[in-house]
């Protein structure tokens, strides 16, 4: 009798478990989301989603990329509408990138970022960036003959920039620091006259004050930011000396070491830059190698370091003027002078305005390459 009861209860459990089958979605019935873009319209959020479409694949081996545009009062509501629109179950775990429209970023990310932090499927390492264009335009961009993939966008953002949800939210949560993200935008190719002459490029950096985007850094400012954040290969420096003519140098790697100094309630940050650069292209008309090599190299290094110092100085003063702390000065101060920071932290923003800094740089040109052709 006892065995019968046991068997029956076992069967009951199995049947209960089988009830799970009814809700089960097969892989092709899921919407594997690859990238999400968020734009702000007058009173709504427009969410653009790039997802893999297995229902209508391009070929036997390749799924097509589906771009879904939905809008709603909030981002969460808009995302909720996806399954209504497509009858597919959205899966966020394969999401690679989150693109914010300029307007959406300016109104404040606190309205929607929570979804990407709390949802059980989203991952902290999703890369995040801002764009001036419409996000749907980016997803519709052609990359060669095919549409651009979120993977391509993901790869455009340098790993070392830490432009991901993890760092973004971490700095957002810290009331003394401010977050920054990469700025990607569409540029027209100059040389080509073809139909799809647009391409996506890493333009610079979007910096935030608390949760709102307040500035987009480009060109020299972005370059300075990248050097201070140790992101190499963003831009090149052109140095002009009498002997060598125009020489293009590229930063291979940089290491920044920031140390605070406190004198009479004045905070000063000593920024030590340790940079390795290499010569990228030489002036055709002048020969770099005919002169005293070591001396020329020294001169080159001096010029480069001056230039970099100037760029960094400008970037830093510009950012500090905005009264934001994207370089995590507060954390550095907290770690090295905890007692002092505790005293001033309530007025940190005030102090930040008066922060002094001094840049010391040690620049080495490690590779000079061959003579010009």
């Amino acid at each position, binding site marked *: 009798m006892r065995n019968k009861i046991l068997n029956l209860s076992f069967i009951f459990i199995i049947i209960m*478990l*089988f009830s*799970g*089958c009814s809700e*089960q*979605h*097969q*892989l*092709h019935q*899921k919407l*594997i989301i690859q990238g999400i873009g968020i734009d702000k319209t007058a009173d709504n959020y427009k969410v653009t989603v790039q997802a*893999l479409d*297995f*229902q209508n*694949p391009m070929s*036997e*081996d*390749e*799924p097509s990329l589906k771009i879904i545009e939905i809008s709603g009062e909030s981002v969460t509501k808009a995302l909720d509408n996806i399954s209504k629109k497509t009858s597919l179950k959205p*899966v966020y*775990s*394969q999401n690679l990138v989150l693109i914010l429209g300029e307007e959406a970023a300016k109104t404040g990310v606190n309205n929607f970022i929570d979804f990407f932090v709390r949802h059980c*499927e989203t*991952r902290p390492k999703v890369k995040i960036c801002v764009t001036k264009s419409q996000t749907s335009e980016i997803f519709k961009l052609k990359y060669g003959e095919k549409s651009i993939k979120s*993977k391509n966008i993901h790869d455009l953002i340098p790993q070392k920039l830490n432009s991901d949800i993890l760092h973004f939210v971490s700095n957002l949560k810290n009331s003394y620091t401010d977050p920054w993200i990469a700025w990607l935008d569409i540029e027209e190719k100059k040389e080509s006259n073809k139909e799809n002459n647009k391409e996506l490029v890493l333009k610079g950096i979007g910096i935030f004050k608390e949760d709102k985007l307040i500035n987009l850094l480009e060109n020299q400012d972005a370059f300075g930011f990248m050097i201070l954040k140790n992101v190499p290969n963003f831009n090149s420096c052109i140095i002009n000396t009498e002997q060598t003519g125009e020489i293009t140098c590229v930063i291979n790697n940089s290491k920044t070491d920031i140390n605070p100094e406190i004198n009479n309630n004045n905070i000063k940050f000593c920024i030590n830059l340790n940079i390795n650069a290499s010569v990228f292209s030489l002036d055709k008309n002048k020969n770099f190698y005919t002169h005293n090599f070591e001396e020329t190299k020294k001169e080159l290094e001096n010029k480069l370091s001056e230039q970099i110092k100037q760029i960094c100085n400008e970037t830093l003063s510009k950012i500090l003027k905005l009264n934001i702390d994207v370089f995590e000065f507060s954390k550095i101060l907290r770690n090295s002078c905890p007692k002092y920071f505790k005293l001033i932290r309530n007025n940190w923003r005030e102090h930040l305005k008066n922060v002094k800094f001094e840049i010391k740089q040690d620049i080495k040109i490690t590779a000079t390459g061959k003579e010009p052709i």
Partner: protein
Amino acid sequence: MFMGFMRHFLNTYVYNKNQKNVQKNKKFFSRLLCENIEFIKREFGDTADLSIKYLKIKDISSALITIGGMVNKDTLTHSVMKPIIEKQDEIQGTTGQEKYKYIRDNIIVSPDQLQVSNFDDAFNMLMSGFALLAIDGCDCMLCLGVQGFSFRSISEPSTEIMQRGSREGFVEPLMINMTLIRRRLKTTDLRFDLTQIGGVSKTSVCLCYLNSKVSKDILKKVKQKLSGVNLESIMESGYIIPYLEDQGDFSLFSSVGMTERPDTVCGKISEGRIAILIDGTPNVLIVPYLFIEYFQHLDDYSMHTYFATFTRWLKYLAFVLSVLLPGLYVGISTFNPEILPGPILTKIALAVGTTPFSLMFETILIHLIYEIMREAGLRIPRPLGHAVSIVGALVIGETAVSSGLIGAPTLMVVALTAISSYVIPNLYEPISILKFVFIITGGLLGIWGIMIVFTLVLVNICSKNSYGVPFTSPISPFNIFAMRDVLVRSGWSFLAKKNIRVQDLPGSEVKDRNINKNI
């Protein structure tokens, strides 16, 4: 040598019978020949193979009783009938009893002779291929060893192929199998214990062990369990496996090993295990048998250590793959697609999108088809075997995918699983069942369900004991010294340092084990 063993067998057998003296209602021979013959005829009925040849030996009637086909007629003629007929004038004595003694001691030249006095023993002898000589006026009969039945010659076992090593495998007659072991272990320590089981078949079963290595406790338990076998007939060693395992302990994994190779048996018994040889089958059982032994192959010991270690790990991997791969494939694809790298995910999703079934159903279906084909390949008459492989290759390999019924990744998973399971053929039975269990749990509960069921199976394996030795020993309970033949296959110089007997493994509860900290 064969005859020698026969005698040994007879002596042991009759000795055992006398010792027991249990069959109190044994029927003894009468002094009248006709009465005895009448009884034998009645017992056997009108069976066609019983042959009774009446002889007159110096006015006394006698009979030579044999079973057709089991005796060598040449030997019978030359060593029994011819001497009796030619030398009947020399026979001395007046009574049947005296004549019987003279014939036994002076006339018959057969080396195997034995005297029986009751019908039970006589029948046993008769059915083992002996000839019975009955003489009127004598209340005992003479058994003459003139066996001559035919049997399969010794050949390499097809189920356990080895790259190196002996090409000999066990055959059906018990005696030959005993010889094969004795030839490899020339020591007086080697013991063969004969008993009979099976109410009707009366199959001879022989326990083979090394007296100095075996645990008396385990030996006692094995004997106890064998005496509890209540089968009518034993046609194959598989019949008695359930009796040798712990009762009431359900498990997919068997704690009784099986082999067809005499060299494997010798290796096992030299570690204190007991081999059970059963007459009429080339499969020899080995107890106690541990989980890790499923992965140890005799070939490992003849290869280079590094390669043997590599193959050992291949076997572990193959086991895990063959059990878990289809389940994980279904579970991950259905519930946890985030684990998969993009390109693999895309391939699977595209394949699933084109097939009509759910991934779980598809995987179960194709595994079932594979199992059906495997079974067909096994049972089909050999000339038709090619047909199966052609149909199989076409049905599963080509058409199923191109018709869009089954996805290519699923097919690949099934193929990989099938091939992995061939690496450890001894574990095929549990693997094929577990595979289905994991596919179903994977399809219903994802990777978490698989993990729970995996832990359940783990607990099941761990709860098993094989004659007081933990089934999972020496991994858990762990012993670092025993890892020389688990994690790696160390060189012989290290392996030979100490012979680890099975009862000394960690966690063993065998009473007469050697309690030594090293092992």
